[in-house]
Structures are given as structure tokens and as C-alpha cells.
């Protein structure tokens, strides 16, 4: 073993020992990530059936009320961000000469920034806000947890002559969407790669 070789070996050993020394005072770094979450559902998730009848000769058709469903949601929002829920008749046609109203009651279960609720007349043309100011919150998942949804189907009295009997039953679909409050574009998780 010549001098040069010995020197290189010594250098290696010293480098190794340095790196070993550097490994000893290890500190643990915890990366805590709370993902953006906003998910909604309705309970029960069944079809709502509404049937208009005349209670007495001379009277208009009676108003039909359904207050059986609850909207439930969980939301984890970034700082200073709020979400809203908006609603539209997405398929089908509301029977002419009638109005369909949705009244949303404040959520009394769960916890957090559960927002403000509104009453709207549902249309096929535009989405309307039923809940806004939603921050980080949850409604609970049990029966009667969440925002009580009261659907009221009534004759539009000034346009009563436009009422037609439905052939069979008239199906429509109502879509609730949770999104960023500032704009109508759907919320996108910034942690995920953009499409």
C-alpha cells in the first residue's frame, strides 16, 4: 500500500465519519395535511312524490308540501374561503301554472360555520343560492341531521288557466351543487394536479 492509497483511504474514512456524525442529531419533521373537503348528500335519498288534488268544488288545487328530506354536508375550507350550495331544476319541466318553492331551514345539528339559508322559487333557467357562508363544518349524518328542505308545490293563481293535467306523472330532477362562494366555477382541490 503506497502513501497515496493510504491517504485516499483515510479521506474516505473521515468523510464517512463526518456523514455519520451528521446523521445523529436527526429531528422529525411532521407534515400535517388537512385536505380541502366539501361533500354533500341528501337523506333519505329517495324520490319525492307530490300529488295535486282539489279539496272541494269551487276551490283551487291544494298546495302540496314535502318536508321529509335533509341536506347533509361536510366542509373543510381554506382560511377566508366560504362555500355555497346552489340549486336548479336540471332535468324535466315544472308543470305550467304552478310554482315549486324550496325553503331551507338552518342546520341545528353538527358544528362549525354552517352558513345562512334561503327560500327560493325553483327554476329551470338559473341556479340559485340556498345556503351560503359555509366554512369548515359538518352537519351530522343521522336522520333529521342537516338542513331541512321544505318543497312546496302550489298553483300559480294568476296563471291558473295554464295548469294541465299531467299524463301519468311528471318527473323532474333537482340538482344541488356545493361550490366556491365567490364564483360559480366548481371548486378544485389545489393539492391535486390540474387537468
Amino acid at each position, binding site marked *: 500500500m503506497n502513501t497515496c492509497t493510504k491517504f485516499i483511504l483515510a479521506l474516505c474514512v473521515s468523510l464517512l465519519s463526518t456523514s455519520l456524525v451528521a446523521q445523529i442529531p436527526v429531528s422529525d419533521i411532521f407534515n400535517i395535511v388537512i385536505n380541502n373537503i366539501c361533500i354533500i348528500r341528501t337523506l333519505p335519498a329517495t324520490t319525492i312524490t307530490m300529488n295535486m288534488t282539489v279539496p272541494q268544488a269551487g276551490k283551487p288545487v291544494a298546495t302540496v308540501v314535502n318536508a321529509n328530506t335533509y341536506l347533509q354536508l361536510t366542509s373543510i375550507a381554506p382560511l377566508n374561503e366560504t362555500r355555497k350550495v346552489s340549486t336548479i331544476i336540471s332535468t324535466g319541466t315544472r308543470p305550467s301554472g304552478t310554482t315549486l318553492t324550496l325553503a331551507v331551514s338552518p342546520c341545528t345539528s353538527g358544528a362549525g360555520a354552517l352558513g345562512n339559508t334561503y327560500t327560493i322559487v325553483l327554476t329551470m333557467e338559473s341556479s340559485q343560492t340556498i345556503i351560503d357562508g359555509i366554512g369548515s363544518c359538518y352537519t351530522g349524518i343521522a336522520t333529521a341531521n342537516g338542513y331541512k328542505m321544505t318543497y312546496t308545490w302550489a298553483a300559480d293563481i294568476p296563471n*291558473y288557466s295554464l295548469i*294541465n293535467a299531467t299524463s301519468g306523472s311528471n318527473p323532474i330532477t333537482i340538482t344541488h351543487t356545493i361550490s366556491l362562494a365567490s364564483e360559480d366555477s366548481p371548486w378544485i382541490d389545489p393539492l391535486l394536479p390540474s387537468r
Partner: protein
Amino acid sequence: MSRTYYILIFCILLSVRLGYVSAQDNNTVKIPIQMTIQPMASLSLAGSENSLSSNQIKGASQILRLNSKGQFWINYSSVVDNNTFNNICVNIVSGDVPAEIAIKLKIGSDVGAGMGKVGKPSAPIYLSIQPQAIITEIGSCFTGTGPNKGHLLTYSWELQPGANFDLKSLESQNIEVGVMYTISSGE
């Protein structure tokens, strides 16, 4: 070795992608609603001192007497299919009327207490056992309930020409005529 890494990276990306899609689905919820209005028609009589039948589905009956008040109101509700109509007809269902006597019925226009496409009154008619239309082209509408709602009907007893007695002389005979009003689809 590098191939294994590529597969691993692909799987991670795929799971992220799938997670993203299902998160989108949870941002909306759809509620199906079935809305039904059956075609329907009902009528009732109001404001008459005559004995009336209780509120029936399709019709109401009435007893006419010589000495009873000759005015009353007809109320109705109707929901029709697109471009179809209901009509109200009247006919005598009981009682004997001397051939020299006719019962005339005048039909007023709807007074506007309700809303919708209310019917058109016909010209005055003489009651018979054959049903005759008195209010036609009833669309989807309601008249309101009770007196002073709907159409005012007025009946009068008339002697035919050539009768050799007057109506007063018949009052002791307690002549009663049963009359039925029905509402049904126009065709």
C-alpha cells in the same frame, strides 16, 4: 428495476386521479321528484233554500218547488288535459210536471271570484229529462265556494200558451221536480 418504478408511479397517479373524480361526484346531489295532477272536475250548489244533495264528486242534485226561491249559485273546480274542456249539464231526474208548465233556467256569467279559464254560459233553457249543456268550455279553473261565487242560476215556472189554469192554482199540489247538475269532459 426502473420498470418497477414506472409502474409504481403510474399506480400512484391513477389513484390520485380516481380520488379526484369521486370527490367531484360528491359536490353535487340529485333529487328526483314525481309531480302529478290528475284531470278532475267537481261542482256544488250554494245559496238556495231548496234541499240540495251533499257535495258530490261529479254532480249535485236539487229539488225545485213552485213556491221556492228561484235563484242559487253554482260553484265548480276543474283541471283539464291540454286543449280539452269540461261542460256542465242539467236534466230533470224526478217529479211530474204538468205538460202545460215549463221550467226556464237562466245562466249568468261567472262573477270572477275565482281564477283560470271559467266556462261560458249558454242561452236560457227549458229543463227536460234530456241533459242540456248550460256552461261549456271549462278549462282549468276554480270559481270560489259559497253564494255570490261562480254563476248565478235563475229558474222560473212558465205556463205554456193555451193553459186553462194559472200557477197559483197549482201551489196546493206541492209539485216537486228533482234536477241533477253534472260536470264532465266535453267530448
